[in-house]
């Protein structure tokens, strides 16, 4: 299993290289540059700025220069946030996004799986309909609607919780954003768990388990749950990578200093180095989490083997 993991990690290098190459050149194909703004700069000033950021060099030179930088762990200076390097920005924001994302994912798994299982076992009862209706609403209501509602109710009207800000990570400031992030996850996971649980409960090995005279509780916990969770686990990999890299919507609405906003803003600002930094970072996380998922799969499903 260890050699399998290493092999996968080795394979990720060419993948990342392709990701970097494609995004680097796509980014440059987009019209407009990092220093195009409301005001046209005198050509000499523009030349000064381009020279300061090496943007006056040929594109291939810039590409290899960038690759060389990455190999040394240097993602370059941000073009927009001039006082910071891309690494500064990512390392300042990532812990925040990571923390919020982990809490949201934890809530998502705990509540999602519980609700999903419960609904599956009470299939086609009123309770099932109620919970699945709720889940459907959770999926349908986007978080740019949910988040302002939460802040309006709990922050402005009731004044129980702060409306925004991070306040160095005070618990009160985390509550609303975590809930806003978790709600759609709970909904997705609940629906997914219910679906696969219903399927598993109808399969042969469950009938066998029942025939052995096990109690329903043991049947569900020992046998059904493990298999029912497989699709949830494969969803969790990319979803976790997505959620811990932050959400531009949640971060803007709650004024949270995570890295989610950079994905969108950097692209709009043509902040080339920051775009590349976030892409490489996100790409690496996706690869990592997919690997983790595959390894967990092996623990849950005895049919999977990690040999060549």
């Amino acid at each position, binding site marked *: 299993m260890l050699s399998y993991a290493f092999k996968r990690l080795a394979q990720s290098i060419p993948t990342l290289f392709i990701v970097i190459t494609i995004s680097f050149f796509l980014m440059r194909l987009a019209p407009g540059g990092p220093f195009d703004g409301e005001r046209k700069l005198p050509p000499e*000033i523009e030349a000064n700025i381009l020279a300061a*950021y090496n943007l006056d060099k040929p594109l291939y030179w810039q590409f290899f220069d960038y690759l060389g930088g990455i190999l040394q762990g240097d993602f370059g200076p941000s073009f927009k946030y001039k006082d910071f390097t891309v690494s*500064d920005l990512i390392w300042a924001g990532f812990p925040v996004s990571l923390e919020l994302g982990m809490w949201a994912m934890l809530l998502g798994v705990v509540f999602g799986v519980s609700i999903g299982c419960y609904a599956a076992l009470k299939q086609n009862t009123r309770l099932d309909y109620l919970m699945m209706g709720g889940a459907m609403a959770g999926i349908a209501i986007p978080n740019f609607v949910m988040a302002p509602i939460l802040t309006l109710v709990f*922050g402005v009207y009731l004044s129980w919780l*702060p409306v925004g800000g991070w306040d160095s990570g005070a618990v009160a400031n985390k509550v609303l954003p975590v809930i806003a992030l978790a709600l759609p996850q709970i909904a997705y996971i609940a629906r997914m768990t219910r679906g696969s649980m219903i399927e598993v409960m109808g399969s042969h090995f469950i009938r066998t388990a029942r025939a052995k005279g096990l109690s329903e509780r043991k049947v569900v916990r020992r046998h059904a749950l493990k298999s029912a969770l497989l699709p949830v686990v494969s969803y969790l990999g990319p979803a976790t990578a997505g959620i811990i890299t932050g959400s531009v919507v949640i971060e803007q609405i*709650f004024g949270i200093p995570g890295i989610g906003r950079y994905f969108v803003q950097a692209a709009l600002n043509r902040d080339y180095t920051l775009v590349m930094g976030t892409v490489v970072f996100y790409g690496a996380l996706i690869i990592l989490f997919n690997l983790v998922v595959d390894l967990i799969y092996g623990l849950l499903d005895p049919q999977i083997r990690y040999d060549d």
Partner: protein
Amino acid sequence: MKKKHRRNTLKNMLLTVLSVLSLGLASISGAQTLHRGIGGEPGTLDPNLVSGNWEDMVVGDLFLGLVTDAADGRVIPGAATDWTVSDDGTVYTFHLRKDGKWSDGQPVTAHDFVFSLRRVMDPQTASTYAYILYPIKNAEAINTGKIRDLSQLGVRAIDDYTLEITLESSTPYFLELLTHYTAFPIPKHVVERYGKDWVKPGHLVSNGAYKLVEWLPQTHIKAVKNEWFYDADHVAIDTVFYYPTEDRSAALKRFRAGELDLNYEFPIDQYDWLRENMPEETVVSPQLGVYYYPLNLRNPKFQDVRVRKALSMAINREVITDKILKTGEVPAYSFVPPGIGDYRIQELDFKGMPYNKRLEDARKLMEAAGYSEDRPLELVLRYNTHDAHKKVAVAVAAMWKAIHVKTQLLNSEVAVHYAELKEANFEVARAGWVGDYADPQNFLSLLEPTPNNYGGYNNAQFNALMKQAAETQDSTQRTRLMEQAERIAMDDYATIPIYYYVATNLVSQKVKGWVPNVLDKHRTRWMSIER
């Protein structure tokens, strides 16, 4: 009656005691803290590199130029107590205050100013706004690499407290220019020690009313009163938090919850609600800025003055400001906004006409130019993606339809939009200009052969008047010359002014000393919090 009176006296006494006590407590606990939403995350706090007004809100609190902005935006002495100007207007001699100190206690000297101005102009610094100081002798040549020796810049320290600035030619708005952040001093001793990293919290020292304590990107910037500031006794607010409130709706909620005391801008679509529910805190004030549609005059379609006039005439600016935008914007009939000293704005000749008559005349002009319902003028109108720009563009297209113009709308995100304008790759486009300093030249130069002259207007007579104005010492005469120049541009229908900008701010009732002004500059040192 008597009894009641006595009770009132008692009550008054109690109240007095209480208020004295609370004042005492306030001064003991020391804390006046201001929470300011500044509308965006600063890219840098290096005054030489700053390029946006949201950055200026922080940098302008930290640093103090030779002259500075009063609460109402007037130019008042800053790091210099007084100055003299040579008779030909080209040599300014500033006397710096002897009690001017950096926040580490070091004196602010003329050498710091020399150092800063040379650094701004050094091409390697790559300062975006360096060109604003091109009136200084040799500044342009140095910034464009024609002169390599920085000491050739027309700025020198006569002694520690006397600074002499020599200009290329007389520049009557030079003092206004010096309030701009590019002209702020930077601490030579600190920059030489830390290089680029001098702006990091812990290194940065400043000579203004505040000093930097902390900068958590996307969270806040924290500054506290600079105890070395010469006028520190009159600075009421001890701590300022600046928040990068990009999301205006979220900022409004934080304001309502009392988490922000000030916010730059508010969500325009909630203006009606704001006016209804918090009229005292919703402040809309005239701003020195114009929203306009440059016509690409290189395009043969706009060679005919009748077409240019008709396009401008057919736009019902009142409908745009009163029915579409509804945030207090003022219809614009001139390119220079009102409110600059004694300058008399030059308005388009059809201003007084009733709109129906204007529309009719415009249609006739178009017909005379050879267009008709069957043979309309086809135009592409570009705007950068934004709700308000879109609304205006749609409205203008509809108004033009009545005069045989078929308008195609084309939107792109802001970086692309301006890249295209720069390449003159447009027919009609949306543009805006907010004044850097209160002088008509700042606007009229957009119609001279300068980089920001998107439409490429080039009128010899206009250029000559502007040149003459630049060389004129007498401020009244200079103003008259610029008025004449604007008159020519207006009669040429060189560009289409649509409305003058307004500044929109949320200002808490407890903040005192915040005064609306046309440059929308509000330095924290003039404010206080009333409990």
